[in-house]
């Protein structure tokens, strides 16, 4: 050790000399979270105790991974987020993706669906089928999942405020396919708190939303035991502008809030915690991202064990999905995005993700075309099968730099979580506008750094070329809204109105008394009540969230 110190001090002199003669590219190097980056790292930078702080994969605190052998056993699930236009059209895209070797489905819903409005609602004008598929009733869900064996695929659904209704529809389709609920595998996003601060598809106020979420936890724990009932998402927080440390901190603060609510509702931590899952962003600062995933895993294990006293090992595991960062895609020279996505995806794999979505090169311009989606999927397959990255667990573990970054992210995130705790938790921090302000400040700072060229974005503020915009962008048929509206009209004529009305009354009644909403919503869905009708009943009782805007 003393030998190293001696060598290091010699190196320091050498380094200073070089720097005096040739100034460095930047005065100060930092990561995206402004963690200082030194020119070189050695074992002297790491104060951790390898056995206790780092451990081994599959062992507490799981910094190195949640399983002892990780991808040597099974690769991560390759799961491309997809959905657009009608249920029939999306069903075709899913079958295409499955035929190309994708291993799980990920359903994108359009905005009216995500906000609990039917396609014929006035506010749905121009939005139907645009960012995802339009689902108005069980009839659409049947078409969406036609010929897809629900006992074989795992399905992730990006649905939050009306998650209970869409989950009920999925379960109703399983009934029709004669698939037992216990065989269903998948995830609903169901993470309302990040909607208030980053994504915007909220409906109800926080307390009522948290009640719905707790209903889902309770009902699914008994009936759909293999389903991940929430995917607590840092992804959108990062996309909205947060840095890596903030992404970890705000995600875990939200997670803590969900756990506290479920405990308050009388559930035992080990009954629901194994079904909590997470969703992170894979951004561009490569090593910081790998460190981020490791840090999040360690912090969560500690929170569950020490703060909530979880005893089941599965409650301690931070299982997560990753998507590459949409906000880093450029409209300029959009083929360059293939390279960005590949590097981001590699960081997620080196960080030990359980499933991965790779973005398509044309997503700064439009929804991805089939060709672009195929390249994105192939990127994952190349990482999995050609690079050797999946053959060893946590290959960057022990790197002086990476361990130092992991430690810095842990500490930074812990401090932020403590600040939120002091405010009274995530809901209070959101009501105060604290989390929103933090995210916006980071977004603005980043944009200024691009503007001043402190941050180079290839093709945008450097290395620009007069480009030809790519052809073959996907266009959603503008007729989708008309077709969906007609479908709703004919559905309403065909179904048993009395049964529907009764079922809707039961939903409203449960909302008022505080009973678990799942059983009456399931009945309403089975009777072909529409999403808008069911959410309409809940809006009447629960009211709607009014956002507080801070600039």
């Amino acid at each position: 050790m003393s030998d190293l110190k001696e060598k290091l001090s010699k190196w320091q002199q050498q380094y200073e000399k070089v720097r005096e003669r040739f100034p460095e590219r930047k005065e100060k190097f930092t990561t995206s979270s402004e963690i200082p980056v030194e020119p070189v790292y050695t074992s002297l930078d790491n104060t951790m105790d390898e056995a206790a702080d780092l451990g081994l994969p599959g062992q507490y605190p799981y910094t190195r991974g949640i399983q002892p052998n990780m991808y040597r056993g099974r690769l991560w699930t390759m799961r491309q987020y997809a959905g657009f236009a009608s249920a029939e059209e999306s069903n075709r895209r899913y079958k295409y993706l499955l035929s190309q070797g994708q291993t799980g489905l990920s359903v994108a819903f359009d905005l009216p669906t995500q906000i609990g409005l039917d396609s014929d609602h006035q506010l749905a004008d121009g939005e139907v089928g645009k960012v995802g598929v339009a689902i108005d009733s069980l009839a659409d869900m049947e078409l969406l999942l036609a010929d897809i064996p629900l006992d074989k695929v795992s399905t992730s659904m990006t649905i939050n405020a009306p998650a209970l209704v869409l989950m009920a529809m999925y379960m109703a389709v399983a009934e029709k396919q004669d698939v037992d609920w216990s065989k269903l595998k998948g995830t609903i996003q169901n993470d309302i708190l990040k909607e208030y601060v980053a994504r915007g598809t909220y409906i109800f106020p926080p307390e009522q939303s948290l009640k719905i979420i707790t209903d889902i936890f309770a009902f699914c724990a008994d009936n759909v035991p293999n389903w991940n009932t929430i995917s607590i998402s840092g992804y959108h927080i990062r996309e909205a502008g947060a840095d890596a440390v903030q992404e970890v901190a705000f995600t875990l603060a939200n997670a803590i809030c969900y756990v506290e609510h479920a405990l308050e509702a009388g559930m035992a931590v080990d009954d629901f915690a194994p079904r909590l899952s997470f969703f992170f962003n894979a951004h561009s600062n490569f090593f910081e991202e790998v460190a981020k995933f490791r840090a999040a895993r360690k912090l969560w294990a500690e929170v569950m064990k020490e703060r909530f006293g979880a005893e089941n090992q599965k409650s301690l595991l931070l299982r997560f999905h990753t998507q590459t960062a949409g906000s880093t895609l450029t409209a300029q020279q959009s083929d360059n995005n293939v390279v960005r996505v590949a590097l981001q995806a590699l960081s997620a794999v080196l960080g030990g993700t359980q499933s991965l979505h790779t973005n398509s090169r044309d997503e700064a311009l439009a929804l991805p075309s089939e060709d672009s989606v195929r390249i994105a999927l192939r990127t994952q397959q190349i990482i999995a099968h050609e690079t050797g990255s999946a053959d060893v667990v946590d290959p960057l573990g022990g790197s002086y730099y990476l361990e130092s970054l992991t430690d810095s992210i842990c500490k930074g995130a812990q401090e932020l979580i403590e600040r939120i705790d002091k405010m009274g938790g995530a809901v209070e921090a959101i009501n105060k506008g604290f989390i929103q302000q933090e995210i916006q400040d980071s977004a603005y700072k980043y944009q200024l750094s691009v503007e001043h060229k402190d941050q180079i974005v290839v093709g945008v503020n450097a290395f620009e070329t007069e480009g030809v915009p790519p052809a073959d962008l996907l266009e959603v048929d503008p007729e989708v809204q008309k077709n969906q509206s007609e479908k709703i009209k004919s559905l309403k004529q065909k179904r048993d109105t009395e049964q529907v009305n009764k079922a809707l009354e039961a939903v409203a009644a449960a909302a008022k008394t505080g009973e678990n909403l799942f059983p009456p919503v399931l009945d309403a869905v089975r009777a072909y009540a529409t999403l808008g009708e069911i959410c309409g009943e809940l809006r009447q009782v629960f009211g709607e969230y009014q956002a507080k805007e801070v600039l």
Partner: protein
Amino acid sequence: MPIRVLIAKPGLDGHDRGAKVVARTLRDAGMEVIYTGLRQSPAQIVEAAIQEDVDIIGLSCLSGAHNSLFPKVVSLLKEKGAEDIKVFGGGVIPDSDIPKLKEAGIVHVFTPGSSLEKIVAAVRDCVQDNE
């Protein structure tokens, strides 16, 4: 008199990072900026613009609904006799849609990667043209 700007999010899209960054940039450039928040109908946006007596409206949409929402704002302004209020827009907008939007009266369309400096200059220019 500082330039008055309304930054608005028409439709159901919740991506407001760009809208807020632009709002803050224009404010830092000395303009008075009002931000509507999410989920505004074209009618609400026009009403707010008239009430706040703004010189220009900036619309942001990343959901692909721009073709139906942006022109509606312009035509409603005309209907209310407020066509002196200019409208610019931004978001995930394919190049092929831009000519149609300009034809409909959107003075500028900014796509991802646009520089803040250019946005500020464009807003200044088209408001000054008006005076």
